[in-house]
């Protein structure tokens, strides 16, 4: 089996237009959640979100490209450009034939659907733009990245609701580890902050009207976000030989299914995912210094997740740090695990643990060190990234500082 490292990272999200700015905002405990701005927002009960503001598609892309790219594709392309530039890779010849891109998304081009449903249903028009299908398809972002960077190997999109990015990352990792691909681009993208995208979530009655406060006793729900996180996964010896800057190593993962409920989380399914990931990575539970929690800020997720952590880590659960950066960038749904991977990289590479902001009251059901409100300096060698989706599809990634 090959070792796998990350040699490039890129993002667009409510905290920043690139990875350094995002990590800086996480370090400073900045809240990227604010009033939503889009058509018909006044008809929503929930009017806050982690919206990407000041993103100028016309600056990043040509007029033709803008007409062809849904916002989730735009985010993915900008994040991929950053990640691939950082890696220094040029996909030519053999490398291009064996490298691909795997992305996670839950909604795909949902704002394209929203806009065009409005056109035909509300405005009563009988004609839509010819690019509706290539814009809205869930695989559009992965396709455009493959085209932009000449990636001719295995490429596809996975959709497992809130765990989409982690499933995508796990799959890309497995391809590099097995030797199937020398390099894979992976991550996720989501742009669900449009009228229909928020209205649908509103119906479920799990969104907060004021803030995302994971693990806090007075938490009252999740807050949606948007954006993308894209990474370059590369075989270790290859990265070392070309002198690449290694951000961290990925050492294992596990995927489990609760097989139980379409919305309620399961402690057992989450625990099996964390324990399975540690086994896969051949890492002892007491080596884990930081967990980037799924931490949605709902009553059900946070207490279930903490109970699962207690089950897996025992006494060590009280010594490790666990934080939810969703408090800052919101819940990016299918893109969330990718943006949250940046908090893991920051912990491992920079020794800075991102905080859980908005934390106000201790909850006895979440009695762990949730790094409340302020970032912390700490030396961490192993970090976990948790994602536990609606429908009980779980994926946990294990990352570590690169070993010699």
């Amino acid at each position, binding site marked *: 089996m090959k070792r796998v490292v990350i040699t490039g990272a890129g993002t667009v999200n409510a905290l920043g237009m690139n990875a350094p700015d995002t990590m800086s905002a996480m370090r400073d405990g900045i809240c990227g959640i604010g009033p939503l701005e889009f058509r018909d927002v006044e008809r929503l009960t929930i009017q806050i979100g982690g919206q990407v503001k000041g993103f100028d598609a016309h600056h990043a892309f040509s007029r033709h490209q803008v007409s062809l790219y849904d916002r989730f594709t735009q985010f993915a392309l900008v994040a991929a450009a950053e990640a691939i530039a950082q890696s220094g890779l040029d996909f030519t010849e053999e490398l291009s034939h064996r490298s691909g891109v795997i992305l996670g998304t839950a909604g795909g081009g949902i704002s394209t659907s929203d806009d065009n449903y409005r056109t035909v249903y509300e405005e009563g028009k009988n004609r839509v733009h010819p690019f509706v299908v290539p814009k809205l398809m869930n695989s559009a972002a992965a396709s455009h990245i493959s085209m932009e960077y000449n990636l001719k190997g295995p490429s596809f999109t996975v959709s497992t609701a809130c765990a989409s990015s982690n499933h995508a990352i796990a799959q890309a990792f497995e391809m590099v580890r097995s030797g199937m691909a020398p390099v894979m681009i992976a991550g996720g993208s989501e742009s669900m902050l449009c009228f229909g995208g928020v209205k649908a979530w509103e*119906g479920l009655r799990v969104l*907060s009207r004021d803030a995302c406060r994971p693990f806090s006793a007075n*938490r*009252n*729900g999740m807050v949606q976000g948007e954006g993308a996180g894209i990474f370059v996964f590369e075989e270790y010896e290859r990265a070392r030989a070309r002198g690449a800057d290694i951000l961290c190593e990925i050492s294992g993962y596990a995927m489990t299914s609760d097989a139980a409920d*379409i919305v309620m989380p399961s402690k057992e399914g989450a625990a099996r995912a964390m324990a399975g990931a540690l086994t896969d990575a051949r890492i002892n539970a007491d080596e884990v210094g930081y967990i980037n929690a799924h931490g949605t800020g709902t*009553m059900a997720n946070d207490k279930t997740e903490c109970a699962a952590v207690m089950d897996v880590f025992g006494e060590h659960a009280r010594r490790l740090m666990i934080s939810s950066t969703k408090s800052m960038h919101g819940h990016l749904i299918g893109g969330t695990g990718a943006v949250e991977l940046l908090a893991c990289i920051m912990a491992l590479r920079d020794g800075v643990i991102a905080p859980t902001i908005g934390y106000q009251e201790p909850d006895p059901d979440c009695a762990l060190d949730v790094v409340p409100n302020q970032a912390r300096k700490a030396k961490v060698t192993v970090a976990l990234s948790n994602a536990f989706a609606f429908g009980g599809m779980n994926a946990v990634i294990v990352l570590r500082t690169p070993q010699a």
Partner: protein
Amino acid sequence: MSTRDQVIAILADQAFLDPSDVSIDSTLEQLGIDSMGVVESIFVIEEAFNISVPFNANQPGAADFDITSVASIIAGVERLRAEQA
């Protein structure tokens, strides 16, 4: 149909019971209505009475709409109908 009978009919439908088997003192849990069923019941009530029910699944007890029992839901609907008329 009275508000009371309509609410009972809606909850009975959710619980797969005959309305005559729904006691006014029952809790939703006793009727076998789970958290998803609660959210769906509230949606059906909103549609039936054309009202907006303040309910957050994360704080089922905190909202000023009491879902403790069939009786408390009826009282809540009657109040909201008066307020939002």
